[in-house]
Each structure stands twice: as C-alpha cells, then as structure tokens.
C-alpha cells in the first residue's frame, strides 16, 4: 500500500501530536462494572441530580455512608443518598419536599451500585 505524501515544510506541531481526550477515561474507571442510568424525578435536585440526567454507576464499589447510590426499592430503581444512623438505614432525598425513606428491619435493601458521576445537559 502506498500513501501520498505532501511535500513541503513539516508542521511544527507534528512532533507534539497527542491523542485527543476520551471522556471514558475520565468517567469510567472500571468498564466491566460501570453502567449508565437515566434519572426520572426531582427528589435529588439539591445534590445536582435532575430529571433526564445520566448517572455513571460503578457496581464494583461498596457503598459507604453518605454516598449517592442506586438502590432497588419495591421493584424499581431509585437514586438516593445512603445514610446509616444507629443501626438504622435511610435513603435520603436531596429535596425538602421529599422525606427520608427509612428501611425497616423486614425490608431488604439492595444497593445496585454507587453513583460516581452525574452527566447533566446544560442547555
């Protein structure tokens, strides 16, 4: 195979060519365990999470107190802030009009993944 070569002066930038930035590198540290989830609703708006946003969710992380998580609740996924308090577990909204959800002892809380980034369209 041959390629046409343009004769002339080389660009001074040639020696400094680098690959352009890839957002995956920034947002996804563990591709096998990372999923994208779409937000519906406004209960997390004070945490900067609005309806229509895309959450980057890493399932390989173990959720710790005060992290924003995607959890399974009554057959649905919900995004909330996890709070543990004196042996009680709460899913807190970030919106004054939504009360915290207390997970009762006979309720099983399954954390689906930990939210690592929020992708929000600015316009």
């Amino acid at each position, binding site marked *: *195979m041959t390629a046409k070569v343009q004769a002339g002066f080389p660009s001074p930038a040639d020696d400094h060519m680098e*690959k352009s930035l*890839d957002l995956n*590198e920034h947002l996804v540290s*563990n*591709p*096998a*365990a990372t*999923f*994208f*989830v*779409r*937000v*519906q*609703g*406004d*209960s*997390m*708006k004070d945490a900067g*999470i609005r*309806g229509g946003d*895309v*959450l980057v969710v890493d*399932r*390989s992380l173990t959720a710790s107190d005060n992290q924003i998580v*995607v959890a*399974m609740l009554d*057959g*649905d*996924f*919900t*995004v*909330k802030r996890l709070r543990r308090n004196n042996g009680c577990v709460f899913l807190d*909204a970030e919106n004054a009009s939504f009360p915290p959800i207390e997970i009762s002892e006979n309720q099983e809380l*399954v954390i*689906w993944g930990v939210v690592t980034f929020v992708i929000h369209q600015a316009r």
Partner: protein
Amino acid sequence: MNRFALVDCNNFYASCERVFNPKLIGKPIVVLSNNDGCVIARSEEAKNLGIEMGTPAFKSETQFKSLGVEVLSSNYALYGDMSARVMSTMRPHIPGMEVYSIDEAFLVLEEWQGESFARELRATVRQWTGIPVSVGIAPTKTLAKLANRIAKKTPELNGVFDLTAASDSDKVLARVKCADIWGIGKRLAARLACGGILTACDLKHADMAWVRRELGVVGERIARELNGISCLALEEMPPPKKGIASAKSFGRPVEALEELEEALATYTARVAEKLRAGRLLASHLHVFVTTNPFNSEQSQYTAGAHIGLIRPTNGTSDLISSALILLRQIYRPGHQYKKTGVFVGELVADTNLQLSFFDNPKNDIHRRALATAVDQLNKRLGQNTVRYGAMGTTQRWAMRQERKSRRFTTDWNQLPIAKA
C-alpha cells in the same frame, strides 16, 4: 498439577434480564427464540414449573399466563454486553482463559487458586455485573465441566465445587450418568451402556483399548480426561456449539494500536476459517484487550466490546472490519498490552440462513467469492491488508420481538431508569 475451572453463568439470559428489572427477581421467566418462536432459556423457577426447552410460545400462552410466567423476547444486545462484562471481570485474575460460549469460560488456575479463590471470583462477578455463576475445579476440562454441573445441582455447595479437594472422587463420578459427561451424547451413552458402562466412574475405570474400539479417539480422550490426564488444552476446542474464540498472549508487551490491530486481525481470520470449516455463521462478535495483571509495576487496563452482526457471517473481511472497529473503541494508549482476542457467538448453520426480504441469493455467492478472494489476499499480503470500513449499517431484520426488554447497556435512549 495444572487445574482448570469452568465458570458457567446460571440461567444466563434470565439473569441478565433480572439485573435491570428487579420486578423479575424470584419470578419464573422464559426467554423466547428469535421471532418469539419457542422457549430457549428459563429461570430456575420456570424449570421447577416443568416448562421444557423448545416449548412453542404460541401454544403455551394461556399456560404461561395462569402460572404467572414472565415471557420475554431474546435481547442479544444485552446478553452479549453482559457476557463481555462477566469475561472481562474474570480475565485479570487468572493466567489463562478460554471463552467457550456466551455464558461459559474455562480458566487455568495458579497453584494457589482453589475453592476460596473461586468463591471470591464468584462474589466479584456477582457484585460487578449482577450475574450469578457456578464454578467447577478439576485437573482436566472434562472433569471441570462435570464439577461445575455438580456445583450447580447441589445447592449446599453454594456454587463452587473443587473436585481436586474431594476425598473420594470416584464416589462423585459414580453419581454422574455417561450421557451427562461433556462430549458424550445420547448415542455414545447408549453404546457404553451395552458394555455395562453407565456412569463417569465406570468409564474412568474401563479398559482403554475397549473404549478406543467402541468410541474411537474422541471417546478415549474423554476417558483419559476422566482419569485426570489433561488431553484438551485451553485453546483447543471440540466441535463448537455456541461460540469460537481465538486469543493469544504476545511474546512481548505491545503498546501501538497498529500492532494490536494486526494481531487481532490474524486471530479473527482464524476464527473465520474455523467458522467456514464448520459451515457456521456468527451473529455476534466480541473483542477484548488486556494488560499483564501479574506485572504490578504497569498500569492495568482490561476492556471488551461486542457487536451484533446484522447479517450472520463467516466472511473474513466482514469479521475483521467489525473486530477492528471494536478494537478502536476499547483501545487506550499508554498501556503495555499483553493479550487481545476475539470471540464469535450465536452461531447458526450456514445452510439455515434465512434470506431476508431484501436479500438476493446471488449476493451470497458473490459474498462467498469475495470472502475467499480476501482470504487469499490476506494470506499473501498479511492479515490486515484488506479492510472494509462501512459496517455501520443500522438496518435490522424485521423480527418479531414483541416482548423484548430494552437495550439497557448499548443504547443511550434505552438506559435503565432510576426514580429520584
């Protein structure tokens, strides 16, 4: 002693659906074939209800309804993506791996990797991907398959069975019928039964000369494997059923995309040749790259990607161009790559390919001639000499898929929803 592990995803299609739809947890699920024809996958609950594989969907509609069975169309985009995730979750932890099918992989284990390692691996796969797997460990692939079966059928084992740690492996083998041994079909089992050989234990201790006479070299190989003598290497494969893989470690670390491309194209060409030799067409293609997990001084990176082939193919050029597109998606510069490979799945017989409405049979002949020509060119000039770029067509066959779940992981418009 070399040991193999067979990792098998439990009720894989149903498990994939459950990861993204919590409402399906604990419910009987059946997944239907293309065109919603018949049952091709069942959850444990559906199996327990006595629903058989191959049950025609249209005949059983009312039965399914009355039993509360959730019926789903097959969603190969989802299963392929989840399969790639399961495989790349495991790959960095083990020295060698053969993706045997969309939901199974053989692993080679390090000396220290035994039952507790398998339990950890199982837990990691479960956490990262949501997919439950079973693991069988044994000195040969045939025995690893058998151990996996036992792990799956015995709930007390919690998904892992290490045959090498069993106090009396003969006793274990005595409980496995010949027909359930990997590679022994009903016909061979019937022939064995005539010689009084009914279980894996019987076959293990049978006279090798007799086995060879009755079952040929294939049977003899199975009997040897039952004796713990490894006859099937990791990449050598029996006649493929669900998929073909080709992957190799590099002699030296590779960093440049061009070099990876060359290697991957070579492996893909090999896969295409194997497909043609078996008169098979692939409907799914999966590509992966990985760095060397045992070199802790290097940055680590493992990634996989897959594509559903709109038109099942065994054409070298088609497969290579798709594979390279995927490779460019997952490639990240700055890593010392140790390995790349390709896996094709959802194989269909070459003769069974149904022509779509727009297809002209003549095109097929042309396609084949082209594939042969490209094969020969590539053979002569190097594997990545001939490339096709225009694979990104979005036409889909008009299939009946009325109950298909969303493409949760492969389409921005179909992401899972979290309520806030």
